[in-house]
């Protein structure tokens, strides 16, 4: 969440006021010193001749430093990130036919609950060994939960072992693979591989709303899922007997 922490600090509570403080201080310093000169009838000459002008010079130097600091602080402002309204349908799909181990199912549930409460996450999709094992949160209206497939971006992430954050999904031509199972209005997606056989896709409704910290947490969660799913083989769908595909009805000559 890009909402600043406003709990315990005076500074945190009055961020706007405090951020402008050096700028105001510098401006008032300048203006005050000049006004002082004007009122006292001394010509505004900046040199070190009299003790008055020496004091003024020091004041002006400090005002300049304060102004520069204030300008530098303008980059400290937290960017407000707005959420775009989503048009997806809520699903909470854990593939029963996949026969996930109990621990893994609970972990995926916990991951969804944690991510949705701490980060601006609207959907979580787990694809393991080509099978959509879980889809929690928002899904594309009309999409049957459980049919998500890993596309190019996800495959690349699995191959390279590194996660990928598509901050502004609209700009990427590769968004087609995500929009098939996530709502059309998903603004960003994080793709994190689970080992080399699975991928965790996290969708958000904000552009650039997932920070480095959130990505680090998603990576940590994916690592844990990898360990939990070790030794688990997703049953390949479609074929009745053991999934090998070869029909035993072929006559052997």
């Amino acid at each position: 969440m890009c909402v600043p922490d406003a709990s315990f600090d005076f500074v945190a509570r009055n961020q706007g006021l405090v951020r402008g403080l050096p700028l105001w201080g510098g401006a008032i310093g300048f203006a005050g010193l000049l006004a002082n000169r004007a009122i006292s009838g001394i010509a505004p000459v900046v040199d070190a001749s009299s003790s008055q002008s020496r004091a003024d010079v020091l004041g002006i130097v400090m005002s300049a430093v304060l102004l520069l600091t204030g300008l530098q602080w303008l980059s400290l402002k937290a960017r407000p990130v707005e959420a775009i309204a989503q048009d997806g349908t809520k699903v909470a799909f854990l593939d029963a036919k996949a026969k996930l181990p109990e621990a893994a199912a609970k972990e995926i549930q916990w991951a969804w609950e944690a991510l949705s409460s701490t980060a601006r996450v609207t959907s979580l999709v787990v694809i393991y060994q080509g099978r959509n094992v879980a889809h929690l949160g928002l899904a594309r209206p009309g999409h049957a939960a459980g049919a998500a497939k890993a596309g190019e971006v996800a495959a690349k992430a699995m191959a390279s072992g590194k996660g990928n954050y598509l901050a502004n999904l609209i700009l990427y031509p590769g968004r087609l693979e995500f929009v098939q199972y996530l709502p059309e209005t998903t603004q960003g997606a994080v793709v994190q591989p689970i080992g080399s056989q699975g991928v965790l896709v996290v969708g958000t409704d904000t552009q650039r709303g997932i920070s480095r910290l959130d990505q680090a947490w998603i990576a940590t969660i994916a690592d844990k899922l990898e360990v939990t799913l070790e030794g688990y083989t997703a049953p390949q769908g479609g074929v009745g007997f053991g999934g090998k595909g070869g029909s035993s009805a072929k006559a052997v000559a």
Partner: protein
Amino acid sequence: MGSIVKALGGIFKGFKKPWEITGLTSTVDYLEYMPSASDYRKHSPGSQPVSAIVPHDIPALVYNTRYYGRDFRRNNKYTARVVDRTPLDVDKLVASMPLTPEDIKFSPASGGGGGASGGGGGLNDGDELDVAVFRFTLGIPGFDDSLVPRVVGGAAAALLALNHVLGAQPVPPAQERAEFLCALLVALCVVTPEIEERLKQVLPGRGRQQAAEAVDGAARVFVLAERLPEADKRELAWLTFALLKNANCCGVVVALGGGEVVAARGAIGSGAAGGASGSGGSGGGEVVLDAAAKDLARGAAASADVAAVLRGQRQQLWLPDRAAMARAGVDSWAVVPRGAQSLLLQHVAGGGALVVLGDRPRALPGKDRSWVAALARKL
């Protein structure tokens, strides 16, 4: 006579016989026909006033009659080129596109200079968007640029005092007013780095700040209770690792219901660690856990807040700095090192607690605290 003519002829050797003169200059009238140079060559060919309009056609439609361009036998520097007529594979093109700023291969980057340094400085949101923001740094090694206002304020204060003492006595009122204003400015300058620090702490999502190398009065331990099953141990190991890696904390202690401490990792107070440093052997490790359990029990008795967290009436107790820790009686715990400046106590279902130590005041921003709460729900 012949010899006289020959001799006379010799005299006229260079002269042409008149009837042999031919051409334009044979009559005297030729001067009328002799043009001057400005008549027959008014403008040199290179600088004619009127330029010719040369009709030409589209070069691609004009057949090139020159054979040397097509003579591949003699001229094999120009080989026949094959046009790639494969249809464009959009998917492959899309897949090879850089998806993150890290994927883009640049030519060797230029380094930052001493005067102006490019690249987002520490003020931006971590290094999420590496926007080239030029930030002037003084480049003094070992000196943090955010302390510049403080240094300037201090120097100005000293000089102002000097000026006041050595200046014209009695001090004119104008100077008094100026000095009063300057004193206010000095105060603001000195406070500015502190405010900057707080503002940076409030910035969300900055990620893990650099962990301190050594926390004062702490020893690095990693202990898990022996009696736990393997799966639980792995779970706790991952949980503590995740917290230490992603949140701004330096030590984690996990206690399950019934006052039983099951894990301790990171920089724990050396009072509790005792001899259990480094390898955390089985005998020595339990010392830490016992000490932690005693601390929790004592803390619950001593402070109502701690007891409320343990019972579950209160989900989190956040002690952002040493003063708050002292008020809650937490800084006397053995597991809390001297160098820990903030502490978060999180309720775990079943009467347990998750203790997270930070080595800086206000170390855990709101997001980190939510993650601690989420992790506690996992247990």
